[in-house]
């Protein structure tokens, strides 16, 4: 009755195991140098142990072929990640964030438990293979139930709006290598679960489910990227942006579900491929960016980008890596981000032309527009984080005296940066590989459309490099006979350029703040004392309204219920008799 742990190896699991290990290796190398920072206050072996446990449990989740073992590993994953989040327990807010995170993951765990319980009820087994056999004949309402539970269960772990609020809390508080793992890999594990349940167990869902997923994905994307814009904490910005990427992937999945419902398997496999590819790419560049943020933190000891600046001189290598990451995340070819971005947009467009129902078309169209806006905003946000952090000149003392980064950290970043370029340039091959498998998920054979002449990107890259090189040579020749002088920036008439005359991160996003400020209820206070001082605050509206109110409700109930347990002994005796009478009435009436 109590099952042991079972493993399987179908290609989906293999793919995700591959992602996990791919990210884990550089992060592990990075960790070796990074933990030096913690040697003073904390126990380092404990952290290493937890990380290994974390990664192992994630591999267990994606590899397990049985509901029970899936849940077991899932919970172990949550627990270990929780203890990693509160690893720096000296700061109170970390504890708060950690507790919030753990409660959210526990919610997701409970939903999943109930979901698998339903699957057990319908199929009479915890085994995935058994479930697969039976699940062909599911009635729509059964599909609805399981879909809803899966949406909440995995969604809470993925951080889709409105269940995202733990993401921007937990990721900044965790040590950077851990947040790289969490945002790069853990979210993908949740996605894996969602894909497995929806596309493999249920084999497509009713139309509404697809539409819901599409809408939720789009909302998540736009909401979280606009929040990310206004953050001045690097890691918080990155956390929001990973929520945004999850939103993109989710939207793509939604498209795929809609298309499956219209029985356009070919396109569906295109969208699914886009989602899976973006999983891989996002895993790579997001963990790269988190590692960079980690080294900035290591070197300067601050996460607030308004205090940073001009790091490119002291930390050249990190700067280059971050630049690559930034290009990738804002979908600049030939870095990997753009390949999946193209596929996602493309699946949107092709879906518009194929689907027959006009309302669905308009829906997809507007979602597509919003997604495009999102990618623009992503460009905006990441350029901000890179430019303000590394370029210009130091904005504070912290940014001027930087520690040197140990070699192992640089190696870790370097590997990931290499991966970013490689997966970008050779994306066509990866795409064709993935599409092959997505085809046999959706039980269609033959090449899906839309994978033609993707190889163009390689030609493009080669040409680009070639021409740039020519120009470079030309430039060298041409600048041989010229003097090259270096002096200060023109300071618009001031004597010498003070750091504070340059744009800060908050200033950089003023335009967006003016228009979209309400979404992350951004408010700015200017008080004109002897010196003009400006203070800005942002907070998550969903968190403010949804979570706070639910907490209020719980508190109210608690105060009411606590009254039962306290009071005079006579009252307690009365409780017994009242409950006796009620029970008697019930029993005599109904039994």
């Amino acid at each position: 009755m109590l099952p042991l742990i079972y493993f399987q190896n179908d290609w989906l699991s293999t793919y995700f195991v591959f992602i996990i290990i791919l990210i884990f290796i550089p992060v592990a190398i990075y960790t070796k140098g990074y933990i030096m920072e913690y040697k003073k206050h904390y126990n380092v072996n404990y952290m290493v142990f937890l990380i290994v446990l974390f990664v192992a449990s994630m591999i267990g989740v994606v590899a397990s072929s049985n509901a029970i073992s899936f849940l077991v590993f899932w919970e172990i994953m949550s627990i270990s990640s929780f203890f990693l989040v509160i690893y720096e327990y000296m700061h109170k807010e970390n504890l708060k964030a950690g507790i919030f995170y753990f409660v959210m993951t526990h919610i997701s765990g409970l939903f999943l438990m109930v979901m698998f319980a339903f699957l057990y009820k319908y199929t009479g087994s915890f085994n995935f293979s058994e479930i697969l056999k039976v699940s062909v004949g599911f009635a729509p309402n059964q599909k609805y139930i399981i879909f809803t539970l899966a949406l909440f269960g995995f969604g809470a772990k993925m951080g889709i709006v409105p269940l995202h609020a733990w993401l921007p809390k937990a990721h900044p508080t965790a040590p950077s290598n851990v947040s790289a793992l969490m945002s790069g890999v853990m979210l993908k594990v949740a996605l894996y679960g969602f894909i497995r349940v929806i596309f493999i167990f249920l084999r497509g869902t009713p139309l509404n489910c697809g539409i819901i997923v599409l809408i939720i994905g789009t909302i998540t994307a736009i909401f979280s990227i606009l929040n990310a814009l206004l953050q001045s904490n690097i890691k918080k910005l990155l956390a929001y942006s990973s929520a945004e990427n999850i939103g993109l992937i989710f939207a793509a999945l939604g498209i795929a579900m809609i298309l499956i419902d219209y029985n356009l398997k070919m396109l569906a496999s295109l969208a699914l491929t886009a989602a899976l590819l973006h999983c891989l790419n996002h895993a790579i560049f997001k963990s790269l960016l988190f590692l960079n943020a980690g080294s900035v933190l290591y070197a300067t000891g601050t996460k607030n980008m308004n205090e940073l600046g001009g790091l490119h001189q002291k930390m050249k290598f990190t700067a280059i890596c971050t630049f690559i990451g930034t290009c990738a995340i804002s979908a600049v070819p030939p870095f990997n981000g753009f390949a999946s971005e193209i596929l996602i947009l493309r699946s949107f467009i092709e879906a518009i032309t194929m689907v027959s129902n006009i309302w669905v078309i308009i829906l997809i169209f507007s979602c597509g527009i919003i997604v495009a806006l999102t990618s623009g905003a992503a460009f905006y946000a990441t350029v901000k984080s890179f430019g303000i952090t590394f370029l210009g000149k130091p904005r504070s003392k912290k940014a001027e005296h930087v520690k040197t980064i140990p070699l192992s950290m640089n190696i870790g970043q370097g590997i990931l940066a290499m991966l970013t370029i490689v997966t970008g340039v050779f994306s066509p091959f990866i795409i064709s590989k993935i599409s092959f498998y997505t085809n046999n998920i959706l039980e269609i054979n033959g090449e899906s459309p839309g994978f033609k002449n993707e190889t163009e990107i390689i030609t493009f890259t080669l040409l680009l490099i070639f021409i740039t090189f020519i120009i470079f040579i030309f430039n060298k020749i041409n600048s041989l006979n010229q003097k090259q002088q270096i002096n200060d920036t023109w300071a618009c008439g001031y004597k010498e350029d003070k750091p504070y005359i340059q744009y800060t991160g908050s200033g950089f996003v003023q335009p967006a703040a003016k228009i979209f400020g309400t979404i992350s209820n951004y408010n700015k206070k200017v008080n004109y004392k002897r010196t003009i001082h400006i203070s800005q605050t942002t907070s998550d509206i969903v968190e403010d309204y949804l979570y706070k109110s639910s907490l209020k409700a719980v508190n109210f109930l608690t105060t009411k219920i606590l009254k039962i347990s306290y009071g005079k002994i006579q009252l307690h005796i009365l409780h017994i008799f009242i409950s006796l009478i009620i029970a008697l009435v019930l029993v005599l009436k109904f039994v």
Partner: protein
Amino acid sequence: MKATLRGYRGSSVVQPYYDLSKLLKKGRVISNRSSFITTIGPMVILGATITTAFFIPVFYTSMEKTIGNLFILMFAFGIVKMFTVLIGLDSSSTFGGMGSSRESFISMMAEPLILFLMIFLYIETNDFNVFHISFINSKIVHYDTAHLITMVTFVIAILAENARIPFDNPETHLELTMMHEAMILDLSGSDLAYVELSSYIKLIVYLIILINCFIPIGIATTFTISALLIGFISFIFKLLFCLLGIAIIETTFAKSRLFRGAELFPAMISMGIVAITLIYIL
């Protein structure tokens, strides 16, 4: 040409090229703050624009071409944008920051228009390849409303992307009004030359895409002398026509405030939705 419209005698058409050559001869002055971005940036920008120029049809198109994917073109301009913005931030000056901020804001708003353009073209021609698109569209004799609406949208997008009036004023050097200029304020000499040249090329490339995607009448579809000739002439005419149009816009409009400019985009998007519905309803 613009000058004539403004009523005074402007400099000759080759004037810009003369400027460039002059700049190339100058030495370069680098801010002591600037990083590898400034060092390689301009060349990459120029390289990217030239590369894109290879990927578009000018006056000859066919179905056999395997290059010219519209996505790649659009994302390639992403490279340019990236580096320009970063250059702006690189030299730690005020206007650089301001310019790049506004630039990236505008481009963020312009992104949906580009997507809409692609959606529309795909609906029309069921392809993403510029060559194929122009090949197919060259068969169309009269254009329906949606087509024209999209064309207008694309024109606006071009104005936005190339930082022309009403979004930006390329001539002036009064700092508060400029975006593109502000970013490259601290470049000089050959770097400036590269950037300027690339911006010219970028404008032309956009115009060519516009022409060949929306009004590709008479473009050569067969590799014969006559066809090529016709194609070339018609192309020149169309190009001149477009430049004229831009010139008219630039002289009639004044540069609007940033947010006034931003308000144009929602309008464009609504137009886009109208166009899509038109296609499916008509």
